[in-house]
């Protein structure tokens, strides 16, 4: 998802650039307490870890692989603010030194890959932790599901930016269907790997998991094994939840004509692209009332992203801990 220069228009680049700069400077202020000189080498090593983690290719199916994005993993291990800063640095260095992503695309690349994944993933993690049991297994499950969610959020954020800053006349719903469809699959992989990686850290150094600092020793010792299958089912559950929530929002458009379009058009876009192996399957763009539904979907995505990222930011500020024990 490292978009190159000229992929979205200048206004979008400037706007997302401003949002990213603002959020990251807020994160820097917030993290100042934890990023004292001691934490700087640690954060640097963590950044190197995230950089290397993006080289982790995990199998998806039949020998194809995806790679880790790591935003949610960074947020859960290091806390959302430090996590977002670390991933931002990775994205910047990739753009400048490795030509991976454009320099003028840094605004939206940082927003999609660092801010949305770290803060959105953190918010999902906090919410899931309330539902899941207060134990090591609960932390692992919440991490996995939150990481999957963060990837989908990221693809939704990109689609919304496309709505505002498209440089090509490809309709929003085509992009949305393709992006979210493909990232549902990647998200499942991200979730599985993140959950198990957090589990591995919890097993050896539970004190290093920022997101599990509220657990007592007894709760940590409660390690009922969670099978991979549970994760898969959970991941698919989250994916379905997203589909349902979005289609519900889309369904709020009042008249029956649009319902028809929703039933045909939207469902087709959601399923067709998730299943089809071509990135842009021939989904009809001229469905009735498509525009209204596109806007509803875009609005819903925007609302979800804003709500989760906002919640992540607020809980990052509120959850100021004395200091991360080393």
């Amino acid at each position, binding site marked *: 998802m490292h978009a190159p220069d000229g992929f979205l228009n200048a206004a979008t680049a400037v706007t997302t650039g401003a949002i990213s700069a603002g959020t990251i400077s807020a994160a820097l202020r917030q993290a100042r307490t934890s990023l004292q000189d001691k934490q700087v080498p640690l954060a*640097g090593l963590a950044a*190197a870890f995230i950089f290397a983690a993006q080289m982790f290719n995990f199998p998806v199916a039949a020998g194809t692989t995806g790679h880790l994005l790591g935003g949610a993993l960074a947020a859960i291990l290091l806390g959302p603010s430090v996590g977002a800063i670390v991933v931002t640095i990775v994205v*910047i260095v990739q753009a400048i030194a490795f030509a991976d992503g454009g320099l003028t695309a840094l605004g939206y690349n940082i927003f999609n890959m660092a801010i949305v994944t770290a803060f959105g993933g953190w918010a999902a993690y906090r919410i899931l932790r309330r539902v899941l049991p207060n134990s090591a297994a609960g932390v692992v499950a919440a991490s996995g599901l939150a990481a999957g969610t963060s990837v989908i959020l990221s693809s939704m954020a990109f689609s919304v930016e496309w709505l505002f800053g498209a*440089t*090509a006349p490809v309709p929003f719903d085509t992009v949305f269907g393709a992006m979210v469809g493909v990232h549902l699959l990647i998200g499942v992989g991200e979730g599985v790997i993140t959950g198990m990686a957090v589990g591995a850290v919890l097993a050896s150094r539970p004190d290093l998991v920022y997101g599990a600092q509220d657990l007592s020793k007894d709760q940590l010792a409660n390690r009922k094994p969670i099978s991979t299958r549970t994760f898969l089912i959970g991941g698919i559950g989250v994916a379905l939840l997203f589909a349902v929530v979005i289609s519900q929002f889309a369904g709020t458009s009042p008249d029956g004509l649009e319902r028809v379009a929703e039933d045909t058009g939207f469902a087709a876009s959601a399923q067709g692209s998730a299943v089809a192996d071509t990135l842009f399957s021939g989904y009809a763009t001229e469905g009735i009332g498509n525009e209204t539904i596109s806007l509803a979907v875009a609005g819903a995505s925007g609302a979800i992203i804003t709500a989760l990222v906002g919640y992540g930011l607020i809980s990052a500020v509120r959850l100021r801990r004395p200091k991360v024990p080393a």
Partner: protein
Amino acid sequence: MGAGHAHALFVHEHSKIHHLAPEAKLAAGFVFVVAVAITPREAIWAFVIYWATLLAVIRIAKLRFGFVAARLSVIVPFVLFAVFLPFIASGEKVEVVGIPMSPDGLWAAWNVLAKASIGASVSIILAATTELPDIIRGMERLKVPAVMTSIASFMIRYLELIAGELGRMRVAMTSRGYDPRWLWQAKPIAASAGAMFVRSYERGERVYDAMLSRGYTGAMPDLGHRRAGRKDWLTVVAMPAVGITVALTAIGFT
């Protein structure tokens, strides 16, 4: 630790561009890419001038054209997307060799290809003529927050080490017959990611202790690396000047 001391993308050479101060190169490259990004796509001549400028810079930097071209493969996924654009874009269609294409889509594809290739080339030239620690030093002097640059410099310092560790883990797994095809076989990968995080973190703690014992007070000492002087800025100003002039002319014409 058989790793080299320069990153893979750096090309050791003694050229005018290699010897420029990093902050001047960074600033010039950035302004140039911004100018390219705001150039209207209809002004094809403008992009020809940009490419010519880049070729000249590659020449002066004593880089091989093939090296830059090969490195451009990072933008391939987006090239594929651009190739699809003329077929999936909405709007009126024109027949090109019997295939219906959208002219808007063709323009969009051209836009992405031209701008992405120029932007990526600038980064490639920058990385090929500047060592990574110098790039970070340049960012520091361009007033990027010190926390970010110091984290970035630690990251770069240890990246190769950690990537090497990852490589060894992978070799170890592969030589024991690990060849996952499906997602539910991914547990060893996750376990090595977790192990790598713990190792990285603990290494960070040791590094910090080692630095403290050598008198670290929270800032790295300036080892007297050369700053950009007037000569650097004068040399470097040609590139953004071309970019801005061409971009403004192109905007004026369309």
